[in-house]
């Protein structure tokens, strides 16, 4: 007996079905952005004690005003308003200065050791201030540059001590598939963080 061939299924409408599904997914889904600059807000203190006095030379005040101009109030900065591109270099110069002596000396800093600038990265504070009318985009740009300054210094020290970038270490630490010793990695990260703590304060805007 001759084999009866199965009737062929018409696949002509397959494309239509697939298009329908495709359009459904295009409409109902979005490409999510899930990365950003992480920050920690300072808690509200109930009883306002005077904060411990900071030496003026250890504070690097960055002000972004309503006209999107960046002013930096610190001895090492001569020209104002400042360009965004120069901000990172100046912040690095300030943080890495290491002008302290004795207890406050910084043995890993590579700065000039200017007496008028910060004593030690542990003491150095960057204060970011803004007006109420400052645009958010500009604020983020400045914030980004300041974080970049910290990351640059941390990367440098991590390279020197462990021959690996700090940002790479952090990425590895968050990666659930990381195979190495996580506790050791955490220790290393903490050490670098202690060397260059991110003291970036976001003040409330002036009214």
């Amino acid at each position: 007996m001759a084999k009866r061939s199965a009737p062929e299924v018409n696949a002509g409408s397959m494309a239509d079905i697939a298009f329908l599904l495709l359009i459904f997914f295009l409409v109902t889904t979005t490409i999510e952005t899930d990365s950003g600059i992480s920050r920690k807000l300072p808690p509200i203190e109930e009883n306002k004690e005077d904060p411990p006095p900071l030496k003026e030379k250890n504070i690097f005040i960055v002000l972004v005003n309503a006209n999107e101009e960046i002013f930096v109030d610190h001895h090492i900065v001569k020209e104002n308003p400042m360009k965004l591109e120069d901000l990172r270099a100046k912040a690095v110069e300030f943080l890495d200065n290491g002008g302290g002596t004795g207890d406050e000396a910084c043995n890993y800093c590579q700065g000039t050791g200017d007496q008028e600038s910060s004593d030690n990265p542990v003491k150095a504070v960057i204060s970011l201030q803004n007006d109420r009318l400052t645009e958010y985009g500009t604020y983020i740009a400045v914030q980004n540059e300041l974080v970049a300054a910290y990351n640059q210094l941390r990367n440098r020290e991590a390279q020197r001590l462990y021959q690996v970038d700090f940002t790479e270490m952090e990425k590895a630490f968050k990666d659930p598939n990381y195979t190495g010793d996580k506790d050791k990695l955490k220790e290393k990260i903490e050490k670098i963080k202690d060397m260059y703590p991110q003291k970036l304060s976001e003040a409330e805007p002036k009214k």
Partner: protein
Amino acid sequence: MSKFKKNKGGGTPGISTASLPDIVFMLLFFFMVVTVMRDTSLKVKNILPFADQVEKLEKKDLVMYIYAGKPSPRYQDQYGTEARVQLNDNYAKISDIQQFIYQERQSKREELVKYLITALKVDKETNMGLVSDIKQELRKAEALKINYTTKQGDASLNLE
């Protein structure tokens, strides 16, 4: 010989569309993999600023989203063009933020509450005044871990 002459008629042969479903399926799978389902419909303009020193948010279920920006064009007749806050699917007042945080906390398991992060998805043309108000409310609600959600890119693009 006539066997081979059968189809040699006039006219151009039609293009085979047999592989069209394959191509469309490929596109479909691409979109299924790289996108996620929308959980809120945005009612505000939300063009995020750029930054390159970014960290990735890991656990999606532990993120609370706060959106802010000018109302989308179709809501502008009703709500004007002043930048507003959006929580979940609706516009909200600044003072609603605390309540929102508490609600989100309640919906999570207790031991996970301390890992909650607030992601601020703010349009880049928003004034910092609004953002500061949001931050102030978050401080009051003790939701101190925040993340300014940004697109990957050079920060100087924000100034244009």
